[in-house]
């Protein structure tokens, strides 16, 4: 897929939708409306939009515990997502999943996942399904750098490569595994270097630059779709907030965070790219932000006004209905 002004505008818009969704979710947490926890994606938006801009509606995406951005970039509706974070009946998962399990199967977004590295196997499985059925759907798995330490990473990618499955493994390396800097617990700096163990291409990109992500993923998706097998892409990125709510962040300095916000904000980087090409006027920019802001305000209102789940819902969706089988 070639890079067009329209494609850039879509990515730019989605980055704002994600950024404002996360900030609103954070605000709603402070108001006591969003409970549980929140893993904010701010700072990493270029990865989700750069990847999903290459995907078709019927391509599969599986995510992580930090997946609001992946859902929005794949096309999920922000009002239902916000309602899910509130635990309301109108949420994407009827209030049964919450922040760590947002999913929209109508978009083949098969869910965030609360277990680190647990999506890598299932994404390889959706790719296996495509191969058996002979479709040209591509599967994309997002996971963090912490997941590369898990056995699931090794077992699943080994099979993805063995059977040359149409899958793109996207590692969002934000430098921290919860509270621990990657360098303290991993001997391999770049997760992309691990690709050699599976005889698949491994590429490391600047995950703050949506254009760079878009172009590298375009190649990986084209390879997967044409039967060329998997790729492992590491997007080096940075999270502007802590691991989750209430993280005191003693493992990094405020100066470090401020420096990254100033010099590596993915929204600014894409804005500069588009402005240089006269693809985004200041009026366009205002309009994008205004629309995204309005959408998220509506989403919060929708969530707030939505009903709570009925008591009977607690026992549904455990099984389809075992008694109906056979």
């Amino acid at each position, binding site marked *: 897929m070639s890079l067009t002004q329209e494609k850039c505008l879509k990515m730019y818009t989605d980055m704002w939708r994600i950024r404002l969704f996360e900030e609103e979710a954070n605000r709603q947490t402070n108001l006591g409306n969003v409970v549980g926890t929140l893993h904010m994606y701010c700072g990493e938006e270029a990865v989700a939009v750069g990847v999903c801009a290459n995907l078709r509606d019927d391509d*599969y995406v*599986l995510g992580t515990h930090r997946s609001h951005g992946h859902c929005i970039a794949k096309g999920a509706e922000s009002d239902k997502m916000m309602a899910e974070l509130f635990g309301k009946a109108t*949420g*994407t*998962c*009827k*209030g*049964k*999943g919450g922040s760590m*399990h947002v*999913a*929209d*199967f109508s978009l083949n977004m*098969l*869910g965030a*996942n*609360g*277990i680190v590295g*647990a999506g*890598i*196997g*299932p*994404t*390889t*499985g*959706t*790719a*296996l*399904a*495509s191969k*058996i*059925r002979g479709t040209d759907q591509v*599967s994309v798995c997002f996971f963090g750098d912490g997941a590369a330490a898990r*056995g*699931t990473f*090794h*077992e*699943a990618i*080994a*099979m993805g490569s*063995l*059977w040359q499955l149409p899958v793109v493994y996207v590692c969002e390396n934000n430098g921290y595994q919860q509270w621990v800097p990657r360098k303290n617990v991993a001997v391999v700096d770049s997760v992309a270097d691990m690709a050699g163990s599976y005889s698949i291409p491994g590429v490391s990109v600047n995950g703050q630059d949506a254009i760079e992500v878009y172009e590298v993923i375009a190649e990986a998706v084209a390879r997967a779709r044409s039967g060329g097998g998997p790729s492992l892409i590491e997007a080096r990125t940075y999270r502007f907030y802590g691991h989750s709510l209430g993280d005191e962040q003693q493992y990094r300095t405020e100066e470090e965070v401020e420096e990254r916000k100033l010099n590596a904000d993915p929204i600014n980087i894409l804005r500069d790219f588009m402005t240089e090409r006269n693809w985004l006027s200041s009026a366009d920019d205002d309009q994008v932000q205004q629309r995204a802001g309005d959408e998220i305000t509506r989403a919060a209102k929708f969530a707030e006004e939505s009903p709570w789940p009925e008591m009977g819902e607690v026992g*549904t*969706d*455990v*099984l*389809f209905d*075992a*008694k109906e*089988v*056979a």
Partner: protein
Amino acid sequence: MTVMAFNEALREALHEEMARDESVFVMGEDVITHGGPYKVTDGVAEKFPGRIFETPIAEAGIVGLGVGAAMAGMNPVIEIMYLDFITCAMDEVVNQAAKMRYMTGGQASVPMVVRLPCGVGRLLAAQHSQIMESWFMHVPGLQVVVPSTPADGKGLLKTAIRSPDPVMFFEYKRTYTHKGEVPEGEYLIPFGKADIKREGEDVTVVAIGPMVQKSLEAAVLLEDEGYDIEIVDPRTLSPLDTETICESVRKTGRVVVCGEDSSFAGSVSEIAAMIAESCFSDLKAPVVRVGSPHVPMPFSAELVKHVVPEAANVVSAVNRVMN
């Protein structure tokens, strides 16, 4: 009706379901070479090319792939060579397969069968002989199936493959060679429907898996003592047919619950507790459990004798509830 061995009945079910539905496929370790370790997957590679995957030794990966393929609309039938190895894939079974439908508010369906050869076969000691029925009964979202005869094996496996939710399918290795009559062609056994394997008036014996056969042997011995026992085979432990079990208990007033799983916090314990709670006023004696003692499976044949319950254990348990 055709007489065949338990593993042949499972193979017939698998072949029939693969012929019926193109979304059914097989995945597991060594499932092609030599027709698979238990010959259940024999012939699949020749008859259904491209629908059987011989995997690396990677249980978490295998079940993880199964979950994804199932969510994408396929029906994976996974073989875990020894039940004990499923511990390497517990996240995939417990946190992924079982909870996916619930966590997504009913969007996800995981129609996956995990076949679990289990129990003592050859003497292979503690890491190749375990029974873990209760582990999976404890997890909402999983269905736990334990066939005891070739006919039940066929009917239950076909139902398992058509189920929209994950199934943990226990195959006692010792049962593979047992022969019995099996209905030809379409034969489905619903989940949650117990089977009365023998009708009797004096004692209800709820028997799981191989304990059905041993209870039938015990029934013959007990007949000489003048006791007429009724044998109820739950066939699926989750869902559990509490109605049929309780109906039998109300008739006899005396119960022995037996299985090869550990009787401490085992599958028999849940059934015993359910009976005590639901049928207390009908009971003429306390419920007695027969199961394995709470020890790992030993290696020596002499020690195994003291772990795996036999017909004699059923006989003495029946004597206990009668006196």
